[in-house]
């Protein structure tokens, strides 16, 4: 399959390791991977912060960059982020329509129909749960809110993790409780966000796992940031990083 990777703005700038892991994983599985140069952001941050009208240009750029999927240039688009995929599926077209651009809305819908979150692509489209990964660590999984409730990825990530050699999965208490990130919420309501992530960090530490994983680096930035501040010793890895890890190319955390 020819697969275009949408790194997302956050991963593309501050956490590229989730994008590089996605690329390496898909190539290992025998696919041709592309990283379209025009890509930037899906518009979610602006839309969710109340700047829908200002997000029009961002959405236009995203749709233009990935529209070639409609002409068969790629078979699918994948993003290592549940919330960005949810934004392309559930927000872009609405915002475009309200902004008076019906054509953009229509194309956005078509492009979104070819866009998948990583665990969806692997399990539903590529039909694999065992990706041949090796990750000799104890891991706990935080189901991020948008993966859980907007995309309904269900147990796909857990099934993928369950097939990883050497990985021991630890159940997370109050797993479905939000970590308190919420995009600009973390700044606009900093103290409430801090109280929420403190609870999440408590639950993660209680599992005794070495690594916390999730399908979104946005939530992980919040969680890992709080865990680092506590000197907890728990490290954060995106689901893609765990699945990309093998005996030959083991996970190296922050190294790129």
């Amino acid at each position, binding site marked *: 399959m020819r697969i275009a990777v949408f790194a997302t*703005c956050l991963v*593309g*700038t*501050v*956490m*590229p390791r989730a*994008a*590089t892991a996605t*690329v390496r994983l898909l190539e290992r599985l025998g696919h041709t991977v*592309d*990283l*379209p*140069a025009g*890509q*930037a*952001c899906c518009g979610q*941050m*602006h*839309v*969710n*912060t*109340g*700047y*829908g009208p*200002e997000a029009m*240009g*961002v959405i*236009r*750029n995203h749709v233009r960059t990935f529209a070639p999927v409609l002409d068969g240039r790629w078979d699918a688009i994948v993003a290592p982020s549940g919330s960005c995929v949810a934004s392309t599926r559930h927000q872009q077209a609405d915002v475009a329509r309200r902004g008076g651009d019906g054509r953009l809305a229509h194309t956005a819908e078509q492009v979104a129909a070819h866009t998948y979150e990583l665990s969806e692509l692997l399990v539903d489209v590529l039909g694999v749960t065992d990706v041949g990964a090796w990750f000799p660590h104890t891991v706990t999984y935080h189901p991020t*809110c*948008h993966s*859980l*409730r*907007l995309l309904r990825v269900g147990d796909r990530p857990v099934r993928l993790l369950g097939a990883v050699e050497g990985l021991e999965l630890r159940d997370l208490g109050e797993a479905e409780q*939000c970590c*308190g*990130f*919420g*995009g600009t919420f*973390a*700044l*606009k*309501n*900093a*103290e*409430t*966000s*801090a*109280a*929420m992530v403190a*609870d999440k960090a408590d639950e993660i530490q209680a599992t005794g796992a070495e690594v916390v994983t999730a399908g979104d680096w946005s939530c992980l*930035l*919040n969680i890992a*940031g*709080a865990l*680092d*501040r506590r000197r907890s010793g728990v490290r*954060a890895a995106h689901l893609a990083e765990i699945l990309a890890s093998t005996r030959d190319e083991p996970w190296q955390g*922050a190294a*790129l």
Partner: protein
Amino acid sequence: MSTFLGMPTVRPHPADPPGAPLRWGPSFPEAAHQTLRDEQLRANLRTATRTIRDKRRRVTAELGDWEQLRDAGAAIKADVMARLPELLTELEANVTAHGGVVHWARDAAEANAVVTEIVRAAGAREVVKVKSMATQEIGLNDALAAAGIDAVETDLAERIVQLAGDMPSHILVPAIHRNRAEIQEIFTHRMGDAPAGLSDEPRELAMAARAHLRARFLRAEVAISGANMAIAETGTVAVVESEGNGRMCLTLPRVLVTVMGIEKVLPTFTDLEVFLQLLPRSSTGERMNPYTSMWTGVTPGDGPSEFHLVLLDNGRTRALADELGRPALHCIRCSACLNVCPVYEHTGGHAYGSVYPGPIGAILTPQLLGLGEEGGPFGAHDPTGSLPFASTLCGACYEACPVKIDIPSALVHLRERSLHPDGGHPPTATDLAMVGAARVLASGRLLRLAGWAAALVGRATGGRPIHWLPWPGSLWTRVRDVPGLPRRSLSAWWRDRQGWSR
């Protein structure tokens, strides 16, 4: 002989006497700054919300058709909103035909004036009240007090809040912010007829309240209630409750006044089958609520001989006019969204500064007050304008809502209303920053440049976590590190690997 009871020692929550029931405090972040420090409050809330949440999960999971019930509830509500005027006139005709009197109130002042006049005409100085959000919303008790009429709340938790001089902090359990030691103190100092040596044993507290309230039920001439539902087709009004206080109020006094938000009307009697299943299971986590009272106008020799129905707008038609905000009017006040909300669980209800707290309050209050309208509140720092931002958009509320109100989408819409008021406003620093960010995020080239800059910082910091950033980054770094930045940008990695595709 009167006994000196001492000065009250229990602080009201919030500390300042509440003014406007929909807007009494500072902005949400400022209010949360206070409430988050109250460890006792957080512990109470955590236990209480999790208990109700688990109960609700159990009793909704046992119904095979729960999802269909939710769909039915949502569909009925959408239908009601689509033809509200005709349903309301139908309701008026049927209530009137059965001997009731219908009053229309555009706002809180009109509703309060109507009710005060009815009580005056009945010659009463004291009225008993069934717990009602609508009368909280209009500040009816204060309005009656100003007319020399004592309104006695008879729901136990509502009475606690009233005696303490508080505002409610939860729709269903308004005294959720109080523990039993505080309640014992409130009763002892404020009730007036509390037994001597009252302990903080729940049973003793309940018995004291029972004796206190029973005396008032028996002497009341007038009762005031809200309504959970009213049936247009028959003119029937319904109240569901758990304590039996409602049944007392609705049957014993001579005069009954019901204040009802116009959105509470339902088309037909059979619609009740949907809501009488959805409401108790979502609200208290019970299969069926202990008391369901329904009445149609007046019945000679049975119950009140005079019935008044006050139909309240108070901003509801304003919300109705907003296609994206309208679903807030579907709310049946079950409070399931409060109990699952992680923000509410941490800040408590008072942080919302409105009688409607939690996720539903964050979309209802701003609309009732005309957020973003000419002359209305707006802006992320305004008490009302900040409410739509008091959410991480985690979606737990939408998932729990028995009538499937898409609260996250409504929040996003209202954030936009808050930041883009009619008539515009001079851009704030945040506005300018977001416009600038949109430029970068709309360009692959500029974003690659940002990635390159991040990698520069990554190399300078050796890829180690960053512990401190200047404002506004300090809002982040006060409690979190910034995990180490990459030493090499994604674009550099990709270019070396195979080159960007065009």
